[in-house]
């Protein structure tokens, strides 16, 4: 077989099975942050739902918010669990998890629809706007953190040490 055993770019790749990463990773922190932000914006969407269709609209918007936050948290939990097994397991778990999460979303929404509390427009608007808006805000925060690690927000801790980031302005 041509190329077998030769030193090339392909043979330099580490065997995926050798790489095991810790379960507690950045995706869980991101998902928790997204859920926290979803809680912050929830009053606005509940009021919007109430304005559009009264109590039923507010309940529909609330269920959509819970679904969005739950979807993020479940996705992060699946990735964290799978990555601690192996990278091959990660691939399977993410794709299977995608199908399972979409199925769960459909089952929960259809079950909720049959209760009589369901109003489609507030539910749909909240689901899409929250998902995309939260992700856009989180991406902005993450990209700022990656570009300037010294600016990364820390919970209740002020870092007085000078930044070692070469891109930060020097006095």
């Amino acid at each position: 077989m041509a190329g077998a055993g030769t030193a090339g770019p392909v043979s330099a790749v580490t065997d995926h099975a050798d790489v095991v990463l810790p379960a507690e990773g950045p995706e869980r922190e991101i998902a928790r942050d997204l859920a926290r932000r979803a809680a912050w914006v929830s009053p606005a969407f509940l009021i919007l739902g109430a304005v559009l269709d009264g109590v039923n609209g507010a309940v529909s918007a609330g269920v959509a918010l819970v679904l969005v936050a739950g979807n993020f948290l479940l996705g992060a939990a699946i990735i964290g669990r799978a990555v601690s097994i192996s990278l091959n397991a990660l691939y399977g778990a993410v794709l299977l998890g995608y199908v399972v999460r979409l199925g769960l979303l459909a089952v929960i929404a259809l079950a909720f629809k049959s209760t009589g509390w369901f109003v489609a427009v507030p539910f749909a608007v909240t689901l899409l706007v929250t998902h995309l808006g939260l992700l856009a805000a989180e991406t902005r925060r993450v990209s700022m953190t990656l570009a300037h690690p010294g600016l990364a927000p820390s919970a209740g801790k002020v870092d007085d040490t000078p930044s070692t980031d070469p891109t930060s302005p020097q006095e």
Partner: protein
Amino acid sequence: MLNVLAQTGPGEMLEGLKAIGAGLGYGLAAIGPGIGIGTVVGNAISAMARQPESAGMARTTMFLGIAFTEALALIGFVVFILLMP
């Protein structure tokens, strides 16, 4: 089959076709994001296998990429919910 169709009213037929269209739309809308998520995760796994020390950054980008790609499936889901009788 034709007997069954002949017994249905015009409204029932339309509702049935709407349900079929909604289900088909949701299924078709899930194909593209599935391919996209596979690409995102595959490349992230390659990055983590090549450079395990930068796995944190790869995992962060991978998670956000998956979530953004999933938004397309959510649009299909919303259409499904709106079309379902």
